[in-house]
């Protein structure tokens, strides 16, 4: 299991009031459940779920759920956004 840092952005952050947290996970697919466990199965009023997030690992986009994680990896979870 890797020790990773997760940063939440957009609706994920506003709804959970959590900017960042640390969890242990082996693969990307484990992150979403681990986050729910850590944050107490938080219910976002927007109906979004962590598994729908746009994920960046160490600054690069990654959608492969089987991607193996390493100690010290930093994940960004973003909600969809547009309009400026």
């Amino acid at each position, binding site marked *: 299991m890797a020790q990773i840092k997760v940063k939440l952005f*957009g609706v994920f952050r506003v709804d959970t009031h959590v900017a960042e947290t640390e969890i242990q996970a082996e693969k990307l697919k484990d992150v979403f459940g681990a986050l729910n466990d850590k944050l107490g199965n938080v219910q976002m009023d927007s109906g979004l779920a962590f598994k729908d997030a746009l994920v960046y690992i160490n600054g690069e986009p990654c959608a492969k759920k089987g991607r193996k994680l390493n100690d010290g990896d930093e994940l960004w979870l973003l909600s969809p956004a547009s309009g400026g």
Partner: protein
Amino acid sequence: MDHYDGYMGQVLFVDLTKRTHSLFPWTDKDRRRTLGGKVMAADILLHHIKPGMKAFDEDNWLVVTTGPLTGCGCPNSSRFNISTISPLTGILTSSNCGGDFGLWLKRAGYDAVIFSGRSETPVTVNILHDDVIFTDASGLWGKTTTETQEMLPKRTGKLVIGPAGEHKVLYACVFSGERTAGRGGVGAVFGDKNLKAVTAFGTSLPTVRNREKLQKINKKWVHTLKTHPLTGRQLPKLGTAGLIAPMQAHKILATKNFSAGRFDGFEKISGEELAENHLVSNAACTTCAIRCARMVKVDDKVVKGPELEILGLLGANILNDDIEKIIRWNWVLDELGMDSISAAGTVAFAMELAEKGVRDFGLHFGQTDNIEEMFRKIALREGDGDLLANGSRWLSEEFGGKDYAINAKGMELAAYTPRHAVGHGLGYATANRGGCHLNAGYMVVVEGLGLDVDSLTYHGKAALAIMFQNLMESVSAGGECLFTSYAVLPGFLIDKPNWPLTKIILAAFPYVGPVVNLLSHFTKAPMINIPLLPESYAIKYATGIPSTMATMLTWGAYGYNAERIANVILGQKADADTLPGRLTDEPQDPDDPRTRVPLDKMKPTYYRARGWKDGIPTWHRLRTLGIKIDKSVYDAAVKEAYR
């Protein structure tokens, strides 16, 4: 005989020189051809301008237009438009505003007002339903935009300029409430005409063709806007500021005068930071169902907060991570009456000139203690502020640095740097009014912000840019906020980016070019309305004008081509659709040659699909769209464009 509903049926013509007013001829035929808003204004100006006419010529007109949906109870329908020759670019600008002036203008009985001439002394024009009264504005001269509005009668629609407009800063803007017609320097044209303020008052409202059906559409429309992932969730919760983090992720957050796309301090200037530590409340334009505006505190006053543009351009782009300073500067710029995008872009360019040892204005990347003072100097044209008041293109012509003077056609770019969103770059280059993200077609909405289509491929981008440019043109012409058009994108494509179906659809996007081109050229084809576009239904039920997806695209194409040929008549050269060399020639990621804007690959396709040659509409294209100008004027303008 005029018979369309939704309109007041009158256009007011005000001669500021003689202080007289009359009615400008505008018929149902004109309404059906142009719809309203910026397309109507482009048509009026196209038939007024002369070759070589300049922004500060007495004969330059200011055309303030509304759309037919304004006043008809439709959501997000209080927008109005100001078009004129821009002092910043020398070509037409169309500046859109969400304040309530448009609604009040219709209440006063007019769909539009044209200001011509120049008053000898500062003047306020008061538009009433049965009269136009000119009052002395000497007592308002020198006042800020808020002070000026507070000194005008309550319960009226107001348009005002601040000190920047009075001093003809080339990117001065016009305010209605706390909203602004920001881009292209319309405030400077107000100032040149000594037009400090306009008020409008009345109690009329437009009639509606089919109230029952319109109400039904409006109800569904509000529901769509309130439940869509972008308009119902992200924009109300985070405002436009919520884009800072996604832009950082996608490497499109303009940083250090667009030399990079990521900023280490992005979290400190983000929408999340604004929402958690500075937001007092949301605010909305009249009739808005989205409520994206942020209210914050400056000096214990609750004022309009910064949008994404100012957070990016006065944050990452000048290497500043102090959001409290940005909030304050945003308020200062509003009070002075200056376009924050152009002001910030010009400051960033000045910083790079200093860094390169070309010219030191006292502005340096990462240094923030003298920015507010410089904004005040710009507004009053004092010292170096007098130079910066002319924008980045002028500075680059004086001192050099054109390759990194980040403007298109003289207008500074918005906060999205386009080397990781190449279709957006094409939009910037081809936009009629210059470096505007919205007039560009807002291609980032498919290139990472909204949908996640490959942002580095040039395939299909020309066709998509044209479609979005035309669509946004017509949405704006109807009087609608452009944010309503985001609801066109199916929610699941946005909310479920990791679904296999979403990935398949997005992967196919770059290859829809031929279909989009077909729609653009054979606009009679999609004669059906699609439920995703409530505007076309609303226009039909509000006005009685037959309206479908086809007519929406045709109005957009009409407006885009009318503005373009007007620009050519005003002196725009062939192949003027360019970007600074930094964006087209230098890869943002040095080891990835795809990270530049390949205009050379996209423009030929774009021009072919538009029916343009070297950026100029062909005579055949103008005739096809029903744009009527004198052939000799056209021929002379085209000849001059190649000179």
